[in-house]
């Protein structure tokens, strides 16, 4: 007993003190005594070595004390040196401001005449100062002043704007989001030069204090939708937000569903397209993935280039993609159902081929399918985790060797290998990774249903999945819209992709404030509408 107590005491003694978020009691006003303010800040921020407290005197002759507090590595020190320390320490006397810098008037003059920085804010409480330091701003404290100056000097190493790796396309813009939140906002704003584009900042995460931006086109987005996004964000009381995926899981409607109800993207053009449909985008600092709400199932199937290529070709591609969706989820189950229960459905020659291929296979088709699917998933997961270029090699080599070996050993039939391979390709053809993931997961219960009840079981499984899908909603919008509830205008851009000029209305399920989005193209204009352009031009002579 004593030993246990002793060990506990020992553990306590060596325990690293847990950093606490800024407490309410620290929301005290700044004191005119700079020493007191520095002491309080040091007490709260602790002895972190990366937090710099640079004390100096404004204009050496005046003896007016000042302190600059910032985090090393997160702020631009050159900027601070050039635009803050140099003017204050060297030139304050020349401008004659230092004498009255301690008063209110002097404080304003300091900001307006001496500091040549673009982002400057006032702070009057200790809490504001702490939050600014942690958010990579610098804080300037001045003796005798009850206010501090917050200086926007954030900078850190980051990835340049690159082509998104998860959403590669053949035709279309190549720029993708990076981990810099403001750069991401700029990438979207560059595309929509509308005065109604709104960007609202917020901070989420008790400890991470992650910056997020809610973007929407005020003239288009449903005000109820924007309010709902704010409401759900308000209820997010979490320790930390490290990626937009955290937010996604907190704000979605049905957390127990395998289907994603929030769309994510690395592409600014995709976010811009969503904003133009009247949807809301959420950008999170530190991640290249923006999220868009509401999201229906039909939002996950197209790729951005569907709108950049000609409509007829992309309609064909979309139909193939839809077929691949069904192949990806249903093919193994249908194979099991037909070979186990409904041989009579298959042409005789094919039955003979399948039967000959299955001779010697010791397992029923259901077990065979499950084993092969699990093996394939193992290979895929292993291939992702193996570092560098070995990953894909493992996938290919593993697939070929294990498949071939399993067939030769008589564990599975060659047809099953073909079925599993086609299914895998089908699931890869679905552009959205998380929808593909859901399909991979749902394939297993469908195989079990097929093994137990044949086609009737497959149908039962499909009914369960579809009933679940139709019951889902994303921010109040039915998940299967515009198929159910149907909307003829929005249907033009789902399984098929109608010509751009015929997509005259924004998708109605999102309740945009302004429904019509385009006018008629030149070849649909009435001759009178074209005016005098069609008239033969008069000869000036």
């Amino acid at each position: 007993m004593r030993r246990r107590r002793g060990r506990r005491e020992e553990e306590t003694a060596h325990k690293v003190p847990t950093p606490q978020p800024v407490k309410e009691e620290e929301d005290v006003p700044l004191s005119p005594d700079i020493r007191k303010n520095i002491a309080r800040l040091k007490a709260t921020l602790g002895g972190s070595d990366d937090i710099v407290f640079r004390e100096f005197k404004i204009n050496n002759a005046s003896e007016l004390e000042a302190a600059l507090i910032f985090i090393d590595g997160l702020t631009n020190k050159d900027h601070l040196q050039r635009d803050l320390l140099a003017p204050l320490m060297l030139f304050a006397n020349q401008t004659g401001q230092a004498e009255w810098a301690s008063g209110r008037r002097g404080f304003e003059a300091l900001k307006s005449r001496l500091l040549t920085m673009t982002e400057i804010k006032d702070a009057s409480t200790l809490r504001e100062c702490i939050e600014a330091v942690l958010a990579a701003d610098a804080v300037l404290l001045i003796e005798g002043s009850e206010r501090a100056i917050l200086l926007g000097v954030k900078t850190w190493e980051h990835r340049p704007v690159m082509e998104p790796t998860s959403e590669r396309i053949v035709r279309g813009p190549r720029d993708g989001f990076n981990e810099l939140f403001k750069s991401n906002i700029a990438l979207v704003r560059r595309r929509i030069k509308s005065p109604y584009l709104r960007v609202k900042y917020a901070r989420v995460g008790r400890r991470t204090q992650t910056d997020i931006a809610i973007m929407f086109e005020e003239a288009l987005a449903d005000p109820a939708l924007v309010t709902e996004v704010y409401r759900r964000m308000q209820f997010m009381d979490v320790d930390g937000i490290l990626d937009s995926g955290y937010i996604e899981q907190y704000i979605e409607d049905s957390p127990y569903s395998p289907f994603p109800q929030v769309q994510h993207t690395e592409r600014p053009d995709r976010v811009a397209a969503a904003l133009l449909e009247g949807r809301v985008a959420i950008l999170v600092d530190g991640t290249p993935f923006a999220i868009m709400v509401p999201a229906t199932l039909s939002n996950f199937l197209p790729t951005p280039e569907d709108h950049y290529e000609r409509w007829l070709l992309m309609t064909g591609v979309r139909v193939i993609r839809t077929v691949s969706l069904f192949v990806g989820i249903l093919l193994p189950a249908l194979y099991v159902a037909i070979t186990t229960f409904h041989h009579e459905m298959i042409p005789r020659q094919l039955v003979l081929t399948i039967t000959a291929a299955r001779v010697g296979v010791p397992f029923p088709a259901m077990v065979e399918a499950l084993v092969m699917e699990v093996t394939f998933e193992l290979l895929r997961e292993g291939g992702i985790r193996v570092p560098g270029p070995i990953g894909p090699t493992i996938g290919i080599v593993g697939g070929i060797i294990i498949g071939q070996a399993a067939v030769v050993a008589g564990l599975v039939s060659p047809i099953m290998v073909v079925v599993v391979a086609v299914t895998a390709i089908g699931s890869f053809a679905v552009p959205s990774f998380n929808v593909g993931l859901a399909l991979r997961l749902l394939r297993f219960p469908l195989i079990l249903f097929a093994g137990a009840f044949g086609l009737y079981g497959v149908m039962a499984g499909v009914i369960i999945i579809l009933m679940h899908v139709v019951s889902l909603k994303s921010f109040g919008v039915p998940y299967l819209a515009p198929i159910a509830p149907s909307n003829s205008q929005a249907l033009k851009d789902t399984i098929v992709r109608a010509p751009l000029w015929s997509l005259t209305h924004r998708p109605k399920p999102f309740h945009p404030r302004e429904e019509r989005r385009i006018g008629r193209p030149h070849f649909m204009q009435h001759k009178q509408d074209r005016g005098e352009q069609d008239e033969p031009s008069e000869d000036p002579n």
Partner: protein
Amino acid sequence: MNPAKIQISARQLMLLKLTGITGVLFLGSIRLLTITAGAQGIIAIAGGGIIGLVILYLAVTVAKMFPEQTPFEFAQAIYGRWMGSLIALSLIVYNLIISAMLLRDLGDFLITAILPETPISANILLMLGLVCFGVYLGLESLAYFNEGFSPLIFISWLIVIASGLLRADFGWLQPLFVVEPGRLLLSTVHSGGLVVDGLMVLLFYSFVTDKHQVLKYNAWAIVIATIIIGAIQIAVVASLSPNLAKTALYPVLELARNAPLGVFLERIEALYLALWIMATFIKISILFYANCLGLTAITGVANYRYFILPLALVTLYLSFQADSVVQSILFDAIFNQYALLYDFSLLLLLLLGGLWVRKPIKKRVARGS
């Protein structure tokens, strides 16, 4: 954004009705029609369509009197707590019998057509489980599901009809008008029962957002359903011969089995069946949902989901009451004849009661008191 009261559109109600009527045709209704009216089933079907329209008008008139209430609720509003509950209970029992009948028919059909080695109890239990899940998710989900899938169901009928008509011998339909009037009347009543599809409009009128469209849309549903049933009847008789249409247990299945597309893929009918099973699921779920609503109205329990399991057990028990397929078919034939009578009587009862109750209210409103 907040979940409001469950609401469906008049178009969704129309599609539910259409699926409810046409989705279960494969189970044996066409054979019953052919037995009673022979090759002249089409005349009976046309008559049934007219009866369907009359009943629809009656149902909408009754529902309009109490637009925000289900029939279970307004039966109590008209006839008081006890008498109203009794009427509501009769409607629940009626729906229960239809649900159990459909479940049993589906089970029989599955073991006959595609799953001969699977026990009927397993098939019925699986469908009942699906129905419970569907009812748990609610009317809105069922309506959305049906909206997404009903086009496929209609396309399947079109293919079956077209492929049947392609190999039809229209001589089998000759001569017309030779059936005796009594049998034709019986057949008309039977097809009326088919086309009316119980009291779906009355049951769900209060959930419809655009109520002024209900009559128009559902009239269209009856017209389309009549055309589909008529076309199937013609295709079955002309393609299989009247005798085979009468003797085959599932003539529609035979029609689908012998369709040219079926010859290409051999037994393609399993794919049609998959869609028709979905339709059966919708029909049973809708009746089940209505029953749950009825019980909430009678008992005053707020959440209808509490009644799903007890009702499922009762339906399961009822579906096992028939000893054999033959007994089940006989029961269907007898029940179908009385279904229309029940529909008509209930509507008349509610209409008269509704007029009686509303008259004093109107007078008071006119007096301004």
